[in-house]
């Protein structure tokens, strides 16, 4: 691979601003130093394979609109040209250039600045040659809900074998899984595939023997049999209220605590009661009382969303009437969706009686009662493996890596799916993204470090442990022998917090060193 850099940009023929002019750009780029050649592709998104033939053998800086990424142009390029991370860089120039600035001159100038800047980064970067860290070939999954089943199927069938543990006994019995999922056929199909899979074994929790931590993994024996050795564990816990913190949710205890401590509660308070007949009257009484107290003491608008539940249970009629008179809003719902896609949090649903749609935007608090969390055996496993259970802090699919990494067991993952703030389809979508994140890194070959993995310059490191204390993934550890900090490369997520905090400037992110970043910023 030559060190020279080719910038490949799309001419944006499709843009209303008019296409980029290759001649102008080339002229302007002549003054810069790092880009050797500029190739402007005529409508790069059309017939990409043919166009790629023109750009082989060099580091390439691609610039095009987001559609190129969506259409797989870059993946194709990497594959066709054999480019590894560090040998190519992609920048989205529709959003940042064409639409950002008004006139052609400015666009061109900024585009050149950007190409110059990023080419500096690319010039300094190195291709990734990391070998994946090998793991034990077996995976243990706790929970046979949607995400548990999906993860089992996705991971098995290759070189990995999967054991699945379920609290319900017998496991995989119909009706006990993925309650609320609106595609029962899907879950039945998944269950059937797991049941018939040769690579997935299913055990009830009661069959589990003690968990023992061993190097690079742990062992479990089932029914007193031989100890099976695992490199990875996946937790797919049942419905839990904890992750709902992300949208500002409380459980009842928290709500009571705030009320008791006279903490201000304002805005809209929404109670979601989506469980059915098994919801005990005490819980309903609790919610009605909480609603009453909040209403009495605050200016909050209080909503109680009910599914099939009859509130007017014997003995609660009076309380129900009272809260209704106080202005608490009761809505029965169907198709409830809790969405937090873009910072705005919306609750939408449909009234089953009238068919009317309702929408609550950005409620101050959502209170979701209900049990949940990891089962006893999963908790035991987590404890044995030294996992810190942070519950509600694991709010995003990819951040679930964090828990795994905190154990310093490179193969331990946590996959939480059934999140209390979502309806069935939300659960499925969430689980799917989780499984994708999981699959992307946990291949039969092992785990590969991320591109921007941190590295420590042992000469500069003063062993102050700032990075060890601050890494959100606990991916920085003490190297006792050499007395320096050392990253666990499979756990590092390349966020750069350690590098920013290092007082001795001893930490560098691969392909993103502070010097190259500064140089690139300068070139803008």
């Amino acid at each position, binding site marked *: 691979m030559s060190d020279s850099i080719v910038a490949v940009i799309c001419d944006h023929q499709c843009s209303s601003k008019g296409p980029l002019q290759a001649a102008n750009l080339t002229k302007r780029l002549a003054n810069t130093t790092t880009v050797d050649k500029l190739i402007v592709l005529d409508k790069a998104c059309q017939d990409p394979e043919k166009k790629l033939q023109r750009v082989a053998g060099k580091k390439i800086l691609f610039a095009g609109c987001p559609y190129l990424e969506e259409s797989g142009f870059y993946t194709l390029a990497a594959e066709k040209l054999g480019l590894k991370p560090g040998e190519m860089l992609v920048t989205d120039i529709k959003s940042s250039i064409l639409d950002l600035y008004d006139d052609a001159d400015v666009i061109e100038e900024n585009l050149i600045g950007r190409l110059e800047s990023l080419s500096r980064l690319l010039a300094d970067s190195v291709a990734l040659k990391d070998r994946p860290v090998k793991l034990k070939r077996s995976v243990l999954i706790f929970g046979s809900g949607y995400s548990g089943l999906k993860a089992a199927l996705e991971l098995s069938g290759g070189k990995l074998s999967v054991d699945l543990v379920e609290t319900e006994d017998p496991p995989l019995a119909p009706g006990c899984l993925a309650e609320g999922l609106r595609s029962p056929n899907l879950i039945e199909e998944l269950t059937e595939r797991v049941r018939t899979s040769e690579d997935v074994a299913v055990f009830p929790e009661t069959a589990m023997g003690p968990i023992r931590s061993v190097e690079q993994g742990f062992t479990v024996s089932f029914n007193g049999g031989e100890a099976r050795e695992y490199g990875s564990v996946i937790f797919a816990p049942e419905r839990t209220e904890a992750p709902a913190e992300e949208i500002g949710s409380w459980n009842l205890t928290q709500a009571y605590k705030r009320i008791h401590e006279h903490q201000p509660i304002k805005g809209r308070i929404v109670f979601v009661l989506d469980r059915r007949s098994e919801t005990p009257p005490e819980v309903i009484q609790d919610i009605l009382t909480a609603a009453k107290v909040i209403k009495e003491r605050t200016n909050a608008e209080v909503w109680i969303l009910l599914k099939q539940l009859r509130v007017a249970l014997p003995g609660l009629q009076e309380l129900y009437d009272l809260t209704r008179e106080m202005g608490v809003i009761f809505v029965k719902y169907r198709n409830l969706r809790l969405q937090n896609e873009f910072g705005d949090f919306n609750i939408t649903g449909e009234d089953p009686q009238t068919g009317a749609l309702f929408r609550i935007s950005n409620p101050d608090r959502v209170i979701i009662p209900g049990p949940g969390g990891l089962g006893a055996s999963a908790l035991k496993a987590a404890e044995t493996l030294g996992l810190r259970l942070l519950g509600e802090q694991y709010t995003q699919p990819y951040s679930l890596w964090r828990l795994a990494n905190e154990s310093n067991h490179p193969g331990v993952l946590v996959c939480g799916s059934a999140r209390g703030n979502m309806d069935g389809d939300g659960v499925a979508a969430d689980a799917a993204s989780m499984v994708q994140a999981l699959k992307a890194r946990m291949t039969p070959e092992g785990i590969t470090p991320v591109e921007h993995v941190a590295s420590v310059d042992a000469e500069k490191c003063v062993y102050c442990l700032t990075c060890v204390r601050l890494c959100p993934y606990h991916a920085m550890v003490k190297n006792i022998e050499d007395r320096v900090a050392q990253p666990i490369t499979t756990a590092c997520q390349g966020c750069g917090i350690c590098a920013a905090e290092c007082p001795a400037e001893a930490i560098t992110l691969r392909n993103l060193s502070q010097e190259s970043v500064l140089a690139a910023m*300068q070139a803008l």
Partner: protein
Amino acid sequence: MADSILIMHCKEGAKRALARMTEEGYKLPARFKTFELPCTGSVNEVLLMENLQNGASGVIVLGCRKENCKHMDGNLRAERKVARIKKMLSEAGVEGRFVEMVFAAPDEGKRLHDTLLRLAHAGHSEGKEK
């Protein structure tokens, strides 16, 4: 670089917020430059100061909405560093240069645009008045 305003943004929520801003048709003047980092938690005082020193009239660190940082609290770390530098610049009587922290969610195109323009304007006029 001279007189430019550098926006250091993360490649997660903040990047999507910028994209949404342009999709919604809000444009930024040419002096704004953007630079993508893995997380605003990777911004430190050196990065802020070196850019100002090299002539940028302002540096805006654009992070994800609070509590939504992929890396737990990278955006909050950036916020504190920005605050420290802000104090330092003001106490040192530095003129015509500013640092600011902005949080944006991917659905806040207009708000982000307004905020960036307002900051640029305020930072600029503040520098001139002195």
